[in-house]
């Protein structure tokens, strides 16, 4: 779509030249290669995962014994809030994005995503959002209103909680601190939302438009289907929270009255807007893991996925029904019996397509030749743990029971089973499964199994016991508790479990780092897999496939490796039997997108505009203008950037 100037590239403005570095730091900053961006997403996610994990450990140290004063109430509030925000917005969503980025184009036989520079832009904006969010460390504190940041706690600064600790007793300073924290929340998540929205559009167009010849929608791997569903959920859910955050920003910074009951605003509107986003968000987090599991289980069962069509439609059905259940987060708000009943019913309905998926995974394994590699262990573990989380979820849908459970540790147990048990276990399965494709080397299986079993132990100790303390009355989000409620011993064990999890994550990091050099060489297809990302080299060349494969079946690679014998059985054909002919020199004949400086530069302006709102008067206007000029200027330069090499 660019207007390509007729003159030679050298004569065009210097500022518009394409970067040329192919290795080193600049090659990563300017890359538009979906694989490099996928790797960067993964590494950034791991950094945030460790940060949020350390926050969780601090929380658990505080709660290990009753009446502990390891953390002050204010610090405790900031830590649990940032743990939630980081895990959801800076680990969960980008972890999905890292797998989508790396794997999805390979699975559909594309050379890259539809808009490579937009893809880089998404990544850098996501990083900018993370840096902005954590800049609160230097700006008077991090958000402290919980990850759903209910109004009017977020909008009103009454007798301020932060005033007496941070403001040193000064109400005015306390108000400033509170406002700053809420601005970090609202603007930080808006910036993250821009990144997510851009990548959602990118993935939708890529999947619809860049499939290899013969790859019909119903031949796409389940993982690609789940990418598509997640992208649509993001496309429609991000705007809802985006507007709510936009309104919150006006409330806290400019005195608007959307959620301020003192001026007639309605805090329940925030709850509706938040959960209209928040519930689809749950599926945004878990469906990538479902996709990964649906790739691992058939490979290690040596069977095609059981009920492919049902799997696809169950995924799509979850995507639709996910829009009709949000108010089950608000049963205790007082919406009345009719609304509560309606949302209880839709919530029970959504268990049906989820159940379909679980039974299909079991059906896939049934009668298969199972190979219990680490990847398979994680996938099966994810199915089992997610099922437990799903069942406690069904108990939430029963309104009278929900009244008892809401805001207790039972809820914390539930969503950690779904998200840690489902998303993290599933994603780690994906890490072990695709690591050889990304690096060319296998991860250590012995360390891997230890990683799995210690994680399984630590996870169940930690979150399994939370069901009990929750049902025994322990509320979530309290910074300490009195002795003698019967919670003491369990809390101590939970803290021990949390440290076992931390040790297990350390094993994972050691395994990933050491396998990079010492792992066994993987080859193109170490798992005898079924989908076409295993047809290309490990790691894939920057153009992915020398020859874009012609697709004639689901599980294309498996069909290429096998033929039907006279008895009607599948028999393996010799390697290279369905070989492809290389007709060109890929380095010169395949035109790949050029690297660019501007996506990263455009991202730089956004946090500057955000920080502007921390100041006032002329300073604010100047900072806003600076940020705006950087971002808009970079976008203009991006739009008119020439190709690196012309004339072919």
């Amino acid at each position, binding site marked *: 779509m660019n207007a390509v100037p007729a003159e030679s590239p050298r004569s065009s403005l210097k500022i518009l030249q394409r970067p040329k570095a192919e290795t080193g730091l600049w090659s990563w900053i300017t890359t538009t290669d979906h694989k490099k961006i996928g790797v960067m997403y993964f590494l950034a996610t791991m950094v945030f995962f460790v940060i949020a994990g350390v926050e969780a450990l601090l929380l658990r140290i505080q709660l290990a014994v009753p009446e502990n004063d390891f953390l002050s109430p204010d610090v405790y509030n900031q830590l649990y809030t940032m743990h939630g925000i980081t895990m959801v917005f800076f680990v969960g969503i980008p972890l999905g994005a890292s797998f989508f980025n790396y794997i999805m184009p390979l699975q559909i036989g594309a050379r890259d995503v539809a808009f490579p520079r937009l893809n880089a832009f998404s990544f850098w904006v996501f990083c900018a959002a993370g840096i902005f969010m954590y800049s609160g460390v230097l700006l008077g504190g991090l958000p402290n209103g919980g990850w759903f940041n209910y109004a009017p706690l977020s909008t009103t600064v009454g007798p301020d909680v932060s005033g007496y600790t941070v403001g040193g007793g000064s109400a005015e300073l306390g108000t400033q601190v509170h406002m700053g924290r809420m601005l970090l929340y609202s603007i930080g998540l808006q910036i993250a939302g821009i990144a997510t929205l851009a990548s959602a559009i990118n993935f*939708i167009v890529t999947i*619809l438009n860049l499939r290899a010849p013969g790859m019909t929608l119903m031949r796409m791997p389940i993982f690609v289907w789940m990418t598509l569903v997640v992208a649509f959920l993001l496309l*429609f859910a991000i705007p809802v929270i985006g507007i709510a955050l936009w309104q919150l920003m006006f409330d806290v910074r400019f005195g608007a009255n959307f959620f301020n009951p003192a001026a007639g605003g309605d805090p329940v509107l925030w709850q509706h807007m938040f959960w*209209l986003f928040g519930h689809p968000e749950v599926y945004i987090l878990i469906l990538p893991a479902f996709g990964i599991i649906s790739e691992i289980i058939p490979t290690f069962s040596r069977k095609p996925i059981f009920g492919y069509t049902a799997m696809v439609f169950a995924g799509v059905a979850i995507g639709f029904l996910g829009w009709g259940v949000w108010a089950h987060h608000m049963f205790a708000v*007082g*919406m009345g019996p009719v609304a509560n009943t309606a949302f209880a019913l839709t919530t029970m309905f959504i268990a049906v397509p989820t159940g379909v998926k679980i039974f299909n995974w079991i059906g896939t394994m049934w009668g298969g030749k199972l190979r219990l590699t680490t990847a398979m262990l994680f996938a099966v573990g994810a199915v089992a743990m997610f099922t437990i989380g799903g069942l406690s979820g069904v108990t939430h849908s029963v309104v009278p029971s929900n009244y008892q459970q809401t805001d207790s540790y039972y809820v914390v147990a539930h969503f950690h089973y779904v998200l840690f048990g489902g998303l993290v276990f599933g994603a780690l399965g994906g890490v072990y499964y695709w690591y050889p494709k990304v690096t060319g080397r296998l991860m250590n299986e012995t360390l891997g199994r230890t990683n799995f079993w210690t994680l399984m132990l630590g996870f169940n100790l930690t979150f399994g016991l939370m069901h009990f303390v929750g049902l025994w009355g322990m509320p979530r989000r309290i910074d300490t508790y009195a002795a003698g409620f019967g919670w003491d011993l369990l809390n101590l064990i939970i803290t021990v479990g949390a440290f076992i999890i931390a040790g297990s994550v350390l094993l994972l990091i050691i395994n990933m780092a050491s396998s990079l050099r010492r792992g066994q060489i993987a080859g193109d297809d170490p798992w005898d897999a079924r989908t076409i990302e295993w047809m290309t080299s490990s790691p894939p060349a920057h153009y992915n496939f020398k020859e874009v494969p012609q697709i004639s079946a689901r599980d294309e690679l498996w069909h290429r490796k096998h033929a039907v014998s006279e008895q009607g059985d599948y028999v393996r054909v010799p390697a290279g039997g369905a070989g492809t002919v290389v007709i060109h020199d890929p380095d010169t004949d395949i035109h790949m997108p050029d690297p660019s400086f501007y996506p990263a530069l455009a991202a730089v302006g956004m946090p500057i505009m955000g920080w502007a709102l921390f100041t006032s008067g002329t300073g604010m206007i100047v900072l806003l203008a600076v940020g705006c000029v950087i971002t808009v200027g970079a976008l203009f330069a991006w739009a008119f950037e020439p190709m690196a090499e012309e004339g072919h």
Partner: protein
Amino acid sequence: MSDADDLEHADHPDSSQYIVIGIILAVFTAIEVAISFAAVPGEIAVPALIILTVLKFLLVVMWFMHLRFDSGWFRRLFVFGLGVALAIYAATISLMLYAGAATQA
């Protein structure tokens, strides 16, 4: 660009049709403003205004944005977003204004 695009544009309306649609839009707007000024009773005015607005919306989307003449994929993507928006916001407004013990004064 290439042939594909020429085909895409082949059955688009020409300028004179655009102008006719522009005139219709102007007339509809005039009727809307007139309804608003003529103190028409609310039971008639509100449905009439809604119908006129929907018609204007459709005229712009179908003709000016060529949705009528373009690939069904574009229509699906747009209608999907519009449909989700109408459904969830209608539900939210009803819940906020009418459900149970609303907190609104």
